[in-house]
């Protein structure tokens, strides 16, 4: 059990679990926000597990999640727009989670990986996470 695995454990117990719980209950808007947060945290957990276990193939999973997660959220927002507008959800935690959580995970991983194509892949994933978070937060606010 090293630091990466401990961080991944903390993210799963403290973040991913409550996000999945929130995605299962509550108003439609809250569920969509929780789904977005869950995919963001899942991507970060996969990156940490890739480093903790020494299995670089997990970063490919993180890449898929960071593309499909925000895209899925946008699809849900598009399809459930009217129901979300009835009870607008609070998305205050999303922006800090994206702007702080994503760099806080990607930068130490880049340092641990060292320069090269693996680090470029991590930076691409980080950029996609931030871009996806910004797009979905804006779409959620606009209803």
């Amino acid at each position, binding site marked *: 059990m090293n630091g990466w695995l401990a961080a991944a454990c903390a993210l799963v117990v403290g973040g991913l679990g409550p996000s999945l719980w929130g995605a299962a209950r509550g108003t439609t808007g809250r569920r969509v926000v929780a789904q977005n947060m869950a995919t963001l945290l899942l991507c970060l957990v996969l990156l940490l597990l890739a480093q903790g276990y020494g299995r*670089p193939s997990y970063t490919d999973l993180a*890449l898929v999640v960071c593309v499909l997660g925000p895209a899925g959220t946008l699809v849900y927002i598009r399809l459930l727009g009217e129901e979300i507008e009835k009870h607008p959800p609070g998305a205050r935690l999303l922006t800090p989670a994206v702007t702080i959580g994503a760099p806080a995970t990607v930068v130490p991983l880049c340092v641990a990986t060292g320069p090269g*194509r693996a680090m*470029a*892949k991590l930076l*691409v994933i980080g950029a996609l996470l931030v871009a996806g978070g910004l797009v979905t937060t804006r779409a959620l606010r606009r209803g």
Partner: protein
Amino acid sequence: MRSGAAAAAAEILLWWAALTALWAVLISAPDPLDLEIGTAAALLTAFAARAARRAAAR
């Protein structure tokens, strides 16, 4: 009409270069065959990307 075609060709070349670079970065070991296939797929995707951009901008 002429400048339209040149702008379209330039945009497709730009997309092609960006997508090929992205492919080369994301695969773990750049085999020459991988790069060839990636370049061909990036060319097709460049057309789709330009169409998506124009559809989104409308």
